[in-house]
């Protein structure tokens, strides 16, 4: 496999300059290649970083940078991972990014010193198309043949040396997973620095060549310029030349209406010759494993069944497998809070730690097992190659509402989190289709909603069964997901027929072969997402928890003037002596909440309580009381915050004698002023509906602002989603009451 051949004509462009420059700034190396060719896998292997890898085209949508230690005694290079492209004639935003970096037009990135063309060895011909274009940029190019293990297994014999000779650049076989060929790649890159690659090497029809010659005059550079002028979309700025180019185009068009296709066809003819010369494959016509799997997975009848089954299994697993670890974590935090109380002097600080920090952050962290499981399944699906099949199955429906088939993958990612989902819309060419997809992405129930759903269901529907075996909880969750999807479809339809009107977009999507999911990739994906979740709990949720705790603790209730005295101690005294002041709010709370009067009065008097009361009239028709109102307000920063907020609310206002009931019990026991339960199953459903439909996520707003480059769209999005959420919640609650469910 040694490909020690030298580049055929090592003309050095900048004989000394290249070396001298290298001394002052590190080498910049860019990875370019077709989508799903294995660029990021190679990037991770070379830099030790952990960017996302998955088996579908369009995973990477931004420029990523890492450090590649080329050789022990040399300065490390800056390695750039780029979105995939099929050609340098970019049509979508992700392709445009890659194109701009490769051609040195990206403002904040120096032009690459060497381009590593990443070529999927099992898919040589299509991958070489981009290589022919990269060679024409005249920048140093080295070809990395990835998936070499798969090519060998498929009995494809690729003569790496011949291939390199035909292309005029060095070709190195690599397998990222096994770290094969990485050193050789480093050597190839180092020796390619400053070496100009041979340019255009294919020929058009005689008639077209005449036109090119006419425009070019002599010399290779002239020919390239002429080809570019005639066949690219833009016209040259110079008036005389533009005239000549236009005339040439007209003459060509008269002979053949499809004249513009000639370079494309000619490149492929050339590629076929190259491939013929260097690949000896037993191209069996035996159907591949992928095709055999697809006989079931994309089957007319079984296909949709498999899709539903996959989703069903994922939900079932998330809700049944996660209970045990969640209980453990919950109890762990409960114990921690008690420990804090036991070992710290009673006072504001202890309260802050126990009620604010531990209850708030712990309340959210409890859901980590579910998040991990969700991402485990998503990673499995993504790395197996199933995602593209799901897009294939659903495309007809997507087209029905005017959406792009490619929109399916961003929307699917949005079930994990809308942020990567919205970024993934960069693969959609038409800006209107892309905007429509962005606008509906947050309707997909993301992982941040899981805590809310789970809490509501655990509190009110956990034991209930329909017909004795269908769990009502699972059914409810499924309906919440379906509700989001349905509303998304309707909104998409409306958008695509009004402000974002455009003809139904085309679909041209590669279906990659199935691969056994790489457990390292899966573990990496889980770790990344889990870390993000924990980090959010440790930053956003923590901050909001402390803030809310403060808002709930101050100002102190008027009848409790002692500055140092704190709520729970007061409540304790009250319950011990049995002379708790009977404020109007605690009248009905005779049972377990005997001593909580003062505590809830404190909550009432606090800033947060006042705020809750202000919005209570607005949210009362949805079935929510002022305490939930506080949670709702907080949840506009991030959805999970409602859980931490409720934790804090029911902790601050709870009966101190009760042995730290879990949040679930607190929710079940919460009372309204009149003594009736604050939460009913109907209120819980109304709350879930609100959370399905409202855009309660600052990060999403920020990403939409960045991706649409304006405040108009994110603000529009927040507003219309809020209206829909309010209306749907209203209908749910009032409708339910009319039906006598309240």
């Amino acid at each position: 496999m040694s490909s020690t051949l030298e580049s055929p004509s090592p003309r050095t462009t900048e004989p000394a300059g290249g070396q001298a420059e290298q001394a002052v700034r590190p080498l910049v190396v860019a990875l370019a290649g077709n989508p799903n060719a294995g660029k990021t896998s190679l990037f991770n292997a070379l830099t030790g970083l952990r960017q996302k890898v998955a088996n579908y085209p369009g995973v990477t949508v931004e420029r990523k940078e890492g450090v590649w230690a080329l050789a022990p005694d040399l300065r490390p290079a800056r390695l750039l991972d780029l979105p995939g492209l099929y050609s340098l004639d970019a049509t979508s935003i992700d392709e445009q990014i890659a194109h701009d970096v490769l051609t040195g037009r990206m403002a904040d990135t120096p032009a690459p010193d060497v381009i590593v063309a990443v070529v999927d060895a099992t898919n040589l011909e299509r991958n070489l198309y981009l290589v022919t274009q990269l060679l024409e940029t005249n920048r140093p190019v080295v070809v990395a043949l990835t998936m070499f293990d798969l090519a060998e297994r498929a009995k494809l014999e690729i003569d790496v040396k011949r291939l390199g000779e035909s292309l005029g650049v060095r070709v190195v076989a690599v397998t990222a997973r096994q770290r094969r060929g990485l050193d050789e790649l480093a050597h190839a890159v180092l020796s390619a620095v400053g070496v100009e690659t041979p340019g255009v090497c294919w020929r058009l029809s005689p008639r077209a060549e005449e036109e090119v010659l006419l425009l070019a005059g002599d010399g290779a550079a002239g020919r390239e310029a002429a080809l570019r002028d005639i066949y690219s979309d833009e016209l040259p700025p110079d008036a005389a030349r533009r005239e000549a180019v236009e005339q040439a185009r007209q003459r060509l068009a008269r002979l053949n209406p499809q004249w513009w296709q000639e370079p494309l066809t000619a490149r492929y003819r050339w590629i076929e010759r190259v491939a013929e010369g260097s690949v000896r494959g037993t191209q069996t016509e035996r159907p591949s494993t992928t095709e055999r799997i697809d006989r079931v997975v994309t089957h007319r009848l079984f296909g949709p069944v498999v899709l539903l089954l996959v989703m069903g299994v994922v939900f079932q697993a998330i809700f049944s497998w996660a209970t045990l670890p969640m209980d453990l974590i919950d109890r762990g935090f409960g114990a921690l809070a008690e420990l804090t109380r036991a070992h710290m002097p009673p006072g504001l600080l202890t309260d802050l730690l126990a009620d604010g920090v531990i209850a708030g952050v712990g309340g959210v962290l409890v859901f980590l097992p579910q998040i991990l499981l969700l991402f485990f399944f998503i990673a499995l699906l993504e790395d197996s190659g199933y995602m593209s099949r799901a897009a294939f199955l659903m495309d007809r429906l997507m087209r029905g509402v005017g959406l792009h088939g490619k929109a399916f993958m961003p929307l699917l990612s949005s079930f994990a989190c809308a942020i990567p989902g919205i970024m993934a819309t960069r693969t959609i060419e038409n800006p209107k289709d892309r905007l429509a997809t962005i606008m509906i992405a947050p309707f997909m129930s993301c992982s941040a909603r899981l805590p809310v759903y789970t809490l509501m269901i655990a509190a009110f529907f956990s034991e209930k069964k329909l017909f004795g075996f269908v769990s009502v909880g699972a059914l409810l969750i499924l309906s919440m997901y379906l509700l989001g999807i349905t509303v998304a479809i309707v909104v998409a339809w409306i958008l695509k027929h009004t402000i974002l009107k455009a003809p139904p977009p085309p679909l041209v999507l590669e279906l990659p072969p199935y691969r056994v999911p790489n457990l390292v990739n899966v573990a990496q994906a889980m770790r990344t997402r889990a870390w993000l979740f924990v980090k959010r709990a440790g930053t956003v949720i923590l901050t909001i928890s402390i803030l809310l705790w403060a808002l709930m603790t101050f100002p102190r209730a008027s009848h409790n003037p002692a500055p140092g005295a704190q709520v729970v101690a007061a409540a304790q005294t009250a319950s011990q002596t049995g002379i708790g002041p009977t404020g109007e709010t605690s009248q009905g709370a005779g049972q377990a909440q005997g001593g909580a009067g003062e505590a809830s009065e404190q909550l009432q008097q606090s800033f947060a309580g006042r705020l809750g009361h202000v919005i209570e009239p607005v949210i009362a028709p949805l079935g929510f009381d002022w305490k939930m109102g506080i949670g709702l307000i907080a949840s506009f920063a991030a959805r999970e915050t409602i859980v931490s907020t409720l934790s804090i609310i029911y902790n601050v206002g709870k009966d101190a004698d009760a042995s730290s009931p879990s949040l679930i019990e607190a929710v079940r026991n919460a009372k309204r002023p009149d003594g009736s339960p604050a939460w009913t199953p109907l209120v819980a459903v109304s709350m879930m509906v609100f959370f399905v439909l409202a855009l309660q996520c600052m990060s999403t707003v920020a990403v939409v602002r960045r991706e649409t480059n304006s405040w108009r769209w994110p603000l529009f999005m927040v507003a219309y989603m809020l209206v829909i959420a309010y209306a749907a919640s209203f209908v749910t609650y009032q409708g339910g009451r009319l039906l006598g469910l309240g």
Partner: protein
Amino acid sequence: MSIAYAALNPTANILDRAETFETATVSLDRLRVGAHARVLAVKGEGAVARRLMEMGVVPGAPVRVVKCAPLGDPLEVRVRNYHLALRRSEAQTISVVLES
């Protein structure tokens, strides 16, 4: 680089042959599942036609229809050793010659 400048004959030849086999040419969406064919021309204009050709659907390329999706659209075709999904409306712009 030996073969680099080999004179290659792109569309012209195939188009010539096409005239004589007019009857055997159909558009890709009319092929039955499992049929083998060879691309004759990509008739569309604009970005989609260009993208299809960049991905290897150029005159002369062998294609096979693998299947159509449950709702009849899109199609899955095999071209240049990989699988491509495209809608019927796009497949219509690709004319092919059936191969035995």
